[in-house]
């Protein structure tokens, strides 16, 4: 079983990490890059498959050279055998369709073709949720999205997954698909290790993983557009159907209430706040 996991670096949106300029625009250069939070679910799913079914895991990303650290972070999460970074100025500023073509080509360029490709559901910066499905479309393999649990029957060469469906009512579907397949993992994905042997394997792998991540560059391959035989007119900004024409800070909400300022150390002030809540206190 060869598992490929896709990941991406995104600005760290945690409080205190985000920088804005004085117009209220996000300053990407000053905001640190971390692994896309939703990708952790994809990594958990890949790790679960590896623990139960064995095999290898490759981690692949597209982005600037700084994304190497994101791959290292990913390697720490999942026992990755090798890391791939598609990195080239020509690939920069790509929208989802140009990214999907580039990533799909990277996957096709792997020596060992994958049995499963994993991606997380949308990135914290672009938030489109398009790149996974479009990459699967390019690879021309079955696509299963919003997956919350996954089982592989290696002998039959099939997967069984549960997936979330939205609409006016929420539903859960059980689907089956042949391998190779492309799995987009929902943030709510849970992996469980019921058998003791799996739990042990998981533990061993975590320990080895930490050691490997120290020397991650020994396992890293970087490809540019020429390595992948990609025409610069079809990737990056030049190959992207969409552009961002404007970014507006979210307008400030108009003032509608006159707030009473309360100092938390002032009992009188706090008393008035508490008085709003006490009528709703739980009974004994």
């Amino acid at each position, binding site marked *: 079983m060869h598992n490929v996991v896709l990941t991406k670096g995104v600005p760290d949106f945690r409080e205190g990490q985000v920088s804005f300029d004085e117009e209220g625009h996000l300053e990407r250069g000053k905001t640190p890059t971390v692994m896309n939070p939703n990708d952790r679910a994809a990594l958990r799913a890949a790790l679960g498959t590896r623990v139960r079914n064995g095999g290898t895991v490759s981690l692949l990303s597209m982005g600037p050279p700084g994304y190497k650290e994101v791959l290292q972070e990913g390697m720490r999460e999942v026992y990755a055998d090798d890391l791939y970074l598609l990195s080239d100025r020509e690939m920069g500023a790509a929208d989802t369709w140009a990214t999907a073509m580039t990533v799909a080509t990277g996957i096709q360029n792997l020596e060992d073709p994958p049995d499963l490709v994993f991606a997380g559901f949308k990135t914290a910066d672009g938030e489109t949720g*398009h790149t996974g499905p479009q990459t699967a479309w390019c690879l021309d393999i*079955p696509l299963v999205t919003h997956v919350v649990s996954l089982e592989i029957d290696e002998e039959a060469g099939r997967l069984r997954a549960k997936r979330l469906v939205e*609409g006016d009512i929420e539903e859960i579907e*059980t689907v089956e698909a042949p391998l190779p397949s492309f799995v987009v993992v929902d943030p709510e994905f849970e992996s469980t290790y019921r058998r003791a042997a799996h739990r042990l394997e998981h533990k061993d792998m975590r320990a080895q993983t930490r050691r490997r991540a120290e020397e991650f560059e020994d396992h890293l391959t970087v490809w540019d557009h020429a390595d992948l035989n990609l025409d610069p007119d079809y990737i990056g900004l030049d190959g992207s159907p969409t552009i961002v024409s404007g970014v*507006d800070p979210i307008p400030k909400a108009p003032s509608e209430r006159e707030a009473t300022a309360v*100092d938390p150390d002032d009992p009188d*002030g*706090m008393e008035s706040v508490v008085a709003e809540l006490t009528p*709703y*206190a739980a009974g004994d």
Partner: protein
Amino acid sequence: MVEIDPTDHDIAELGPKIKDVDDADELREMLELEESGEDRAPVKTLVEDRIEKVEDDGEAVDPESVDLSEQTVADIANLVRDVDDTAVLREMLDREREGKDRKTAKEQIESRIESVEGSDEAEGEQLEYVPPEEKHSDLDHPTNDKQWVEGVDGGTYRDMWVYCETQDGELIDVSLEMLGKARRLMDDYNDQYGGDETGDPEDVVAVLIGDDVADLTDEVVAHGADRVVYLENDRLGRFRHRPYTEIFCDMARAGGQLAAEGRESVDWKEYDEPRYTVFPATNNGRDLSALVQGELDSGLASDCSGLYIEDAMISNPAKTGKPGDSEEFERVLHMKRPDFSGFEYSTILCIDKPFRDFHPQGASVIPGSFEIPEPDPDRDGEVVEHEMPLDEAWFDVTVTDHDTLDTGVDLTGHDVVVALGRGIGDAPTAGIELGLDLVEALDDAALGLSRGVITSSYNFAGHVESYVGEQRQIGESGQVVEPDVYVAAGISGAIQHKVGMDESDTIVAVNTDPEADIRDFSDYFVEGDLFEVLPRLTEAVERGELPAALAEADD
């Protein structure tokens, strides 16, 4: 007489439209219309701000003498648009450097310089097609990317296509919301452009795919479609990525340059592909939108909350083919979406490039963004049953079972909602625990979250992790609540959050930042750290009085 009646529009559409209105009296009339109509506070603010701006602008600002430090970047962007003299622009650039030295302001001036200089050089030049073999002789040809590109160059495009998603044989709400929006957009479009290039009005086309959809065609027409194209087949009862995408694209290409065998000519369609496509931003709808637009070699914006159509000046050389030159693209769908985890609104455009069309221009729409229109049972529409063979190989993913989930977490209908925001960032797990403590001390309360908490990469300990998810999100893309008391702890108060809670009777904000926006729509503003304030409130609610230590401090 005003040109724009604000009550006909969503706020996201009004923003850009109103920028073209320079007459303060007209704006005042719009304000009155809004007040006597829908009376939406954010719309009124928008109009009032514009009035203020128009009146300020009364005297023309002279770019050569204006104090740039008093202008916002947006003002500067507007100012330089009318300046064609690069000497003046360079002099402005120097003044900005010496003044506030804002990167974004300098970029605006620089890009104007580039565009003025570029347009002199590039004038009259025709773009010449250079075959990729010649342009990139270092690569092997055909290059890997070309295997996926099956698009049109110089094609004909018409109409707005709306994918109407169904569930259990019924249209879901967002499908009707999209039809209403598409109807308004195309009515305006036909007014503004006089229909297509030959003067025929362009249509709203609804697409239905499933095992039981033929019965829905009347409902779709009543909600605004001029034409319904449907395909019904027993195997399509549940959404499947591959067959649904193949069917939608086959419909979209029918009668055009890339039509499949047997669909080269159809009596209901003579253009190559749709001009616009709109999909619901549901799990399945969003997936379908990405696949359809990829297969049609075009682009899209996801999770939009505002759409409008107008011409766009584009200076991006990837689109114009000529660095420094601006080109006007007509009839462009402007797609507005909350971005960067709700920090900003982005406007996304899908624009052709030389020798490669990017049509249809696609969008997916957040459910609840638009109103469901009043159905008109007398509306006429054409119903087309699309026929095509379904390939066995498209059905390699099978659904073996499906089940309805309980309706997640309902935050509405509680006495109190305790909501947490990014202020928990220093100790996210402890923050959730403190919120839950207060919830438990109350009889009928629920825990809510701002979008920021859900999209931040916090690591939560296992026992609180299950509380963190979109099912607890309050705001524009989450739930709308109106409890008796709303406690907003560590929430800065973005406008998208406000729309989810500002109908609450009493709003108590807890925030360390005295300038936090939420102050403007709170009844109490406790300036302090939620990690200290929440436990005090919890203890006070439990005991029926303030913690002893605090009460004694009063003596």
